[in-house]
């Protein structure tokens, strides 16, 4: 079983500019066969060969999960990012062959919920598009509150409002519109589950508001993929494979391990799923833990590292890989 599990060879069927920042890419099988069905909230890891640099970025599947003719993702261009979104914006054209992973869901609906209350910010709308399609088909009860900077950047807002009417609420920052979160959280029926996907600050705001309003932890769900942060160049010794590698400023440790030809496990590549957890055999310096996976105690112990997002500063780091 290699690194990220099962993969699918796909062809780019369609590229659509949704607005000034977002482009939608649709993947199909070259032979026209069906894609696996998936669950709302799932993502796929898109592999890119960016002029010799191997990039693998996770994107939420935004289509109807019951539609097995193809997968769609929405990519927000990040001009200051590491280059994955820029590659998808500048170089991907219809007809191109690519490789993506089977769907993985780290943001699943809790199907026991009496009601699903969804809060989206910006590009965080994408997993909700699939979840709403799934719930609409199953007859589930949902309500979406979707905030963007302005109407021009409110991707899919009009379609959602037209199709689902009063279940969709749109907010535009430029018009001074704000989600009245305390009132919203206070007015939900028992058995409601709360989902949030968006910028870091929004996730923190929604989770802490829910916590102080007394919501059970298990009823509050969020998804936040971390981009691997840049940092200083550092060297790592991979004890099991007998290699010493150098991790570049804009490269993640996981990417450097892969570039050295070492097969390492991963799923989300965003510090959330735990699959890439690696034992630290020696550390003379400081591990910069950037993940959501390890406990504070594990981070303090210095015996584990999540190479998809975490880095190192110091004299030497030895990993069991």
């Amino acid at each position, binding site marked *: *079983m290699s690194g990220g599990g099962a993969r699918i060879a796909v062809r780019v069927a369609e590229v659509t500019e949704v607005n000034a920042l977002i482009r939608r890419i649709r993947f199909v099988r070259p032979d026209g066969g069906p894609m696996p069905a998936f669950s709302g909230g799932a993502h796929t890891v898109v592999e890119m060969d960016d002029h010799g640099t191997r990039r693998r970025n996770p994107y939420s599947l935004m289509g109807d999960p019951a539609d097995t003719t193809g997968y769609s993702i929405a990519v927000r261009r990040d001009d200051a990012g590491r280059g994955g979104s820029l590659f998808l914006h500048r170089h991907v054209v219809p007809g191109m062959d690519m490789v993506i992973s089977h769907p993985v869901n780290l943001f699943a609906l809790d199907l026991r919920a009496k009601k699903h209350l969804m809060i989206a910010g910006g590009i965080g709308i994408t997993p909700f598009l699939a979840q709403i399609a*799934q719930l609409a088909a199953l007859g589930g009860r949902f309500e979406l509150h979707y905030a963007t900077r302005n109407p021009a950047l409110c991707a899919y807002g009009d379609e959602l409002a037209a199709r689902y009417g009063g279940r969709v609420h749109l907010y535009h920052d430029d018009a001074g519109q704000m989600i009245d979160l305390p009132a919203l959280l206070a007015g939900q029926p028992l058995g409601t589950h709360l989902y949030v996907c968006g910028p870091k600050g929004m996730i923190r705001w929604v989770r802490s508001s829910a916590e102080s309003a007394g919501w059970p932890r298990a009823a509050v769900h969020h998804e936040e993929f971390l981009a691997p942060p840049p940092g200083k160049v550092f060297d790592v010794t991979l004890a099991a494979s007998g290699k010493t590698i150098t991790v570049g400023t804009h490269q993640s440790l996981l990417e450097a391990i892969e570039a050295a030809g070492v097969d390492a496990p991963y799923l989300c590549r965003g510090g959330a*799923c735990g699959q890439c957890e690696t034992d630290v055999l020696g550390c003379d310096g400081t591990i910069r833990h950037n993940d959501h996976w390890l406990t504070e105690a594990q981070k303090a112990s210095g015996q584990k590292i999540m190479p998809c997002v975490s880095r190192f500063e110091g004299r030497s780091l030895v990993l069991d890989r």
Partner: protein
Amino acid sequence: MGLTFKDETFRGDFTFFNSPAAIRRFPFPFPEDSYMYSVNMEPHVPGRPGSVFEKTFDVDEHYVAEMRERARVLAEDPLRCQSLPHMTLAGWDLLELIMQAKAREYPDWFSLHRDGDRWHWINRPLEIEQRFTFLDETTLPCGPMEYITRQTQGDFSLQDQRNDNLWMDAGMVTTQADWSLDFDIGMNFFEWHAPVPLAHEKQIFTRALKFLMNVQHGVPARRFNWTMTIDPLLDTSPENYPKWGPSRATLTPENVGRRMHLRVELQTFFRLPRSNALAFPIRCYLIRFEELATQPKWARRLHRVIRDLPDELAAYKGFLRNKPIMVDYLAQFDDGTPTSPGWWAED
């Protein structure tokens, strides 16, 4: 396919037995001469032709009789099949997985025609033909999980994944090694494994849960488990313990070869696509000691495994009182020669 489905019973007169071909393909679970718990997972990929690993869901000579037995158990105790309301979608996922696999891998016996949501399923061994609408429960005679597991050997548990845990929220359990779905339904992974001795201290379940939560769609996994059963009784349930428990006091040196069975579970794990639930089929294979003794390597090794098994494990597996009789019987097949690595009888 030249397989004949046998007419046999798993209760009363116990006419079940394994043909010589079934003995040779038996999934003997011990790759070495001793046993201790381990997570022992491997990818569920097609194995040797003819083996129980060749197909996604193995169909063998006991298929029709096992399905008849399941129907009897359900008629006596409908609570052996339960699905909490949020698990219906997972039931459809399971139905799709099994129908597609069987139609692809056993085209002489099963076929599936799909026209959008309108599906047409034919199961020739059980003489079933069904037209239904996918995801519409009203078009099947029962729920989707019950429908397909009445036609598939092995027990099934469907586990919801949430709150960093797995929850046993649906299942079909009629061929179990002394556990109860009715008792376990709604429990999480640690709760339903609470009775297992020794393994918790070894952190086995913490590691196993982590592995299972990361089982990905398209990459199923499998492992073995095993126990011992007197007489070829599929339904060794806690609910029916008064009916079968006393048989443990009737084993003798004279009847142990005929009545004692090694009971092997081939457990597989599949991520279900629409529900994100985990399907956990537990397929039970039985082989009587006399049948097993026809394979010299297996008989030698089983003697060593049982002889050296810690008493806690023998007690948990329910054969501590009969262990001396079993070891004495198996000793006659063990001349002390080494056994080759791996579980294949002929290697």
